[in-house]
Structure formats: structure tokens, C-alpha cells
């Protein structure tokens, strides 16, 4: 079982993450990557700062991964979440899942992202030219959990 949870201010290297997941030796790898939207999407955005609860974050993500492993036959899971100040187009989060079955790889990765979005203690502060403000939680993220019940 390839498995890791990493909270870091450093960027991730998608090629080496992919190679590690491939070492699970199976047929299907699904990767989700979340990126700070570019300025075209939000012209006022200067940066995004991510804060988290060290210790609890890792516990919550590990619990989500354990639940994913109970539900799907996955042989590799890697979750990387960046913290600190990130500029537009920088990577925020990586979730990779490897399985012998493509649907298991897709669903486990989507499941982990949905739970991470609503359970893992991270908070985003948006920095714009007019000032900074904390991003509000979205109801659609809570709604996304319902399909896994």
C-alpha cells in the first residue's frame, strides 16, 4: 500500500507523485489537483493564504483515507495540501488514488476531495488589491457529501 499525507508550504512535483502512485502496480491512477484560480477569473486576486490546524489536519485526512480504503479496493493514496501564501495558478492540493479498477480510483479520489473540503481544518484568506478577507464556506461543498451517505 502506497500511502502518504503531507501538509507543506512547498510545491509538489506531479510527475514524481504519479510515479510513486504507479508503484502500487495497478491499472488505474486518478489525480485531482486544485489550483489557485488565475487573475482572468478574479482580476482583483493577488494571493491566497492557507492556514491549518497542525496535528488535527493530518488526523482528519488520515481518517478520510481510511474510510476510502474501506469503501474501495485502492492500493495507493497520496494527499498533499499546501499552506502559506500562494499566488494565482499555484498548486493548492493534490489527491492521487491508484486501483486495479478505474471506477474505484475515480470515486475514491472524488470522495477524499469532498471530505477534505468539508472536514480538514484549513482556511483560505483571499488577498485582493482592496484588502484581505476570509473565504466563506460553501453550501455546495456540504451538499457534495450527501452522495456518499
Amino acid at each position, binding site marked *: 500500500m502506497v500511502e502518504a499525507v503531507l501538509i507543506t508550504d512547498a510545491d509538489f512535483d506531479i510527475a514524481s507523485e504519479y510515479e510513486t502512485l504507479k508503484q502500487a502496480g495497478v491499472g488505474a491512477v486518478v489525480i485531482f489537483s486544485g489550483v489557485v484560480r488565475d487573475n482572468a477569473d478574479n482580476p482583483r486576486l493577488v494571493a491566497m493564504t*492557507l492556514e491549518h490546524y497542525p496535528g488535527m489536519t493530518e*488526523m482528519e485526512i488520515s481518517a478520510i483515507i481510511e474510510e476510502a480504503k474501506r469503501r474501495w479496493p485502492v492500493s495507493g493514496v497520496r494527499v498533499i495540501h499546501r499552506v502559506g501564501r500562494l499566488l494565482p495558478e499555484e498548486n493548492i492540493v493534490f489527491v492521487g488514488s491508484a486501483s486495479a479498477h478505474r471506477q474505484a480510483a475515480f470515486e475514491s479520489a472524488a470522495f477524499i476531495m469532498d471530505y477534505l*473540503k468539508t*472536514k480538514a*481544518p*484549513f482556511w*483560505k*484568506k483571499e488577498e485582493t488589491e482592496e484588502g484581505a478577507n*476570509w473565504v466563506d*464556506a460553501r453550501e455546495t461543498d456540504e451538499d457534495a457529501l450527501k452522495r456518499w451517505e
Partner: protein
Amino acid sequence: MRILYFAWMREHTGCSSEEIQLPEEVETIAELAEYLRGRSAGHEAALRNMKTVRVAVNRRYAQLDSTVSAGDEIAFFPPVTGG
């Protein structure tokens, strides 16, 4: 007892972490929040509406009626927005 605040709650209280002596009459998270509101105007602002606040006891999600004990690490924070 260690109390942690995150995101805008940290900015309101002006501190990310504080050590307090747990008063004897405080048994639940709701009572603890009520007690902490008295510490400053910032604490009052941060903990005014507990419906929008999430709580963790010893790094696990807890409810307003969860009980607290002297050695606990209690964290108050807004709904999460990572990912």
C-alpha cells in the same frame, strides 16, 4: 486547558493559543464558550454566534454539549475552506 483559535476567530481574539484554568462550573463546550466570551471584546465577537463555529476537543470534532476536562486542547474555528 489549552484553547486554540483559527482564521477570523484568531484575528478577533488576537491570539492563536491561550492557557486557561478551567472554572469548576464549566462542563460543556457551550459553557466554555460562554465563559471565554467574558475575556475580551474580541472573544465576545468571535464566540457570539456559536452556530457558525466549529469545535474540536483534542483534535477531534466535538459538539456544543460535548464535555470538557482540565487537560483538554479545545479549538474554535470557522467552517473549513481548504482544498
